[in-house]
């Protein structure tokens, strides 16, 4: 787990510096292998030493990712990675904080937290590996499963409409929203890097297919055919309405790249908190002084 890379100059970091010795438990062919590679690459381009990175996840196949990096990792409980990640960032705003999870972790059990992480605009990069199925519990419906999908909990076809993760986060006011797929590794690494560099909450949806309970070879091919880089559409990423229009095609098209990047990012929670602490004279008085508030005032 520990790293020896801490004293090197920043420009020396390569993907290898972020890869731990732990062997992934994923099925052969799982999309998440590509995602973790893209994360290593993005981190190498950023060049922060691993000990300054906190990588948080919930529960699920994709949530194992922090363990496969040399960063400080926290594999937490189902659906709650975002609150924990916010606590880390607010406690130490100097850290680079990444969050990883699946579509069930993020949009079923943890769905309520997404809105509030966005609302607080804590500077996190949230990478959701969206495979439209529950893999770790062996093939149940997920919140992004398409209507009609036959799974072990929808033997006659799903009756529910899927959550649209892109519209969901855009609707709550996320200021950086992108999508990628391990089928286009360099494109994925690029949007992750951009997300990390974005000064505020960044959301990256990754179409990372489950090869065991999700797509067969033919479906994988079909998915690749849907892929289209947003760059090729001349999409203006600063236009949130245009981003929403494109996001509505989730499930029909697989656009990759940045849907939305706010031109002037809003202040972050932690940035404002720091300013408030300084304004109120933090560090200038002994803590015991707070007890003066209980003195009787004649």
């Amino acid at each position: 787990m520990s790293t020896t890379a801490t004293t090197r100059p920043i420009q020396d970091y390569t993907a290898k510096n972020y890869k731990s010795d732990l062997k992934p438990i994923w099925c052969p062919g799982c999309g998440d292998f590509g995602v973790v590679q893209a994360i290593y690459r993005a981190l190498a381009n950023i060049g922060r030493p691993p000990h300054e990175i906190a990588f948080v996840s919930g529960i699920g196949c994709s949530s194992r990712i922090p363990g496969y990096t040399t960063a400080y990792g926290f594999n937490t409980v189902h659906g709650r990675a975002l609150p924990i990640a916010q606590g880390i960032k607010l406690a130490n705003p100097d850290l680079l904080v990444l969050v990883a999870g699946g579509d069930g972790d993020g949009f079923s059990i943890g769905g309520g937290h997404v809105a509030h992480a966005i609302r607080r605009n804590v500077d996190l990069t949230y990478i959701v590996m969206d495979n439209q199925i529950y893999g770790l519990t062996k093939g149940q419906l997920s919140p992004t499963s398409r209507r009609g999908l036959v799974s072990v909990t929808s033997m006659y076809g799903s009756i529910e409409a899927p959550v649209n993760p892109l519209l969901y986060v855009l609707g709550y006011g996320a200021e950086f929203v992108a999508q990628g797929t391990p089928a286009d590794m360099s494109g994925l690494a690029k949007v992750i890097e951009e997300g990390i560099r974005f000064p505020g909450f960044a959301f990256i949806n990754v179409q990372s297919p489950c090869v065991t309970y999700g797509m067969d070879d033919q479906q994988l091919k079909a998915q690749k055919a849907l892929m289209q880089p947003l760059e090729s559409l001349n999409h203006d990423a600063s236009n949130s309405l245009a981003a929403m229009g494109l996001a509505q095609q989730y499930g029909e098209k697989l656009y990759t790249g940045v849907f939305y990047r706010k031109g002037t990012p809003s202040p972050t929670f932690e940035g404002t908190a720091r300013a408030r602490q300084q304004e109120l004279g933090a560090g200038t008085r002994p803590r015991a002084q707070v007890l003066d508030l209980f003195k009787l005032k004649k």
Partner: protein
Amino acid sequence: MNTDLVIGMAGSGGDGIVSAGESLLTAAAIEGYHGVLAKSFGPQIRGGESSFRLRLSTTKMLNTGGTLDIAVALSWDDFLRFGGELPVGGHTTVVYDSITKVPIDRIPLVGVQPIEVLAVPIEQMARETGGSERAKNTVVLGLMAGWLGIAREPMMAGIRKRLAKKDAEIIDKAVKAFHAGFEYASAHPLTSDRKMAPPAKASAKFVVDGNDLCAAAAIVAGCDFFAGYPITPSTEIMQFLSREIWKYGGTVMQAEDEIAGIGAVVGASFAGKKAMTATSGPGMSLKTEMLGLASIAELPLVCVNVQRGGPSTGIPTKAEQSDLFQAVFSAHGDVIRPVLAPVSAEDMYGITIEAFNIAEQYQSPVIILSDQEVGQRKETAEPIDASQVHIINRRVPGAQELEKYVRFRFTESGISPISHPGMPGGNYLASGIEHNEPGAPTASGEMHSRMNEKRLRKFRPLLDRRDLFIIDGPPDAPIALISWGSVAGVAIEALQIAQQQGLKVKLLVPKLMYPVSEAIYADFFLSVKRGLVVEQNHQAQLFRLIRMFVDVPSGMQTLAKSGSNPITPLEVVDRLKQITLALQQGKDREPSEV
């Protein structure tokens, strides 16, 4: 002259009842009296009903006593909604607003003949002097100042201060309302003597409530992060910190729910900061999964449960001690989470510091089991000397340990040095999943067993912490009195009365509720034949918890009552007398030999 008086007052939500109680307490405290002010509310925000019980004394006490000496009803409907919380007895002076127009013989105090009953034109005086019925509470303050013979000047100053931001006319009216009450009291002396004797030692005091003091103590202990979700009766903790913590470099996050609140606290602790959350019963239910995570990831945090009546939404505004089982047992798996219970608002300072120290030392969540009474009552306290405070910080790895850092290393104490993000060489994977010494996930039964053993063993030193127990009375006494939390203040006084009456009783109050120290209890029970466990819940939760771990003398009984009616010291003494008599006569079950 009296050395001790209990005053109860009730009215509707907008009558300023609680603010009148606070003014009276503060004024009395300035004159050197001791006081405990319990507030009680109905469920409504405006309208509704509210009340206080204020006990003033020339000496230190930790409970609000029994039957009222003075009962003040601004309206009988509101007063009677508090039923047994404001008990009127044969020695009570009953004062009510004559505007209620209830004939004296029809006052609904069923089966009680108070010593005197006075109809006072409270609202009329308020209108005549203040121009509005909102000055009723100020008129009552004047009445009390007159009848009790205390606190006239400080009360006037208090009124002026409270209204400092209003214009001069309003202040002038308030002062007139106060004088009207005071003069009425002079012109209508009570037949029963309600004058307070001078205080034994007039010294400067603090006026504290448990929630605010908990928040302040957290700052003193080094807490730099708080996240929580508003819930009665714990919310004042978050409110205090959201005002003060920034001044000391900390941050408060009002979370979207209780889970996110403790989640952010877990994260902040992982990042190396001391962190706290606070809630009440229903919120505690939501937090339990995260408590388990913090236990297996060995992360320090403090979680306060200001208990209210349960289960579910229960009675949000009133005290109960019914979450002990939950605090001790609610997270799944083999795990110990230390649980501490304060005995008074003043005690919250020491308990909160201790909670942080235990959390940091043993890298574990620690639960503070407060309750509505401790949390929201106001009481006089001795000034706190924070220079004497002993602060423990988590042990971080040294340079040598960081050369080949192993986060969960098996050590003799079970405690392994803990790094945090930002610390070069300390990188590790924390997880809720079982792990090996370096932190890698494992499904090995053997490793799980060894890790469980490590996580349980590290708390062993807590079992010798006699300082976390109040033990009083003759060591060889055959009668035991045990209580905890806010009700312990009743037991402490009952012990004094019982001893004055010649009963051979000794007292034990655990502040460390869990883990249960078998040795400390067993030692206490050595001389005990019979006894009483007093607590405010229905199942006698402490009594049963002790019996899980300790061979309890078979003559132990319980005085366990749920609901918000106060258990009184005299009620406890009566039971102790019965128990003593039974022991002398060899009646009821023979106690087993210990």
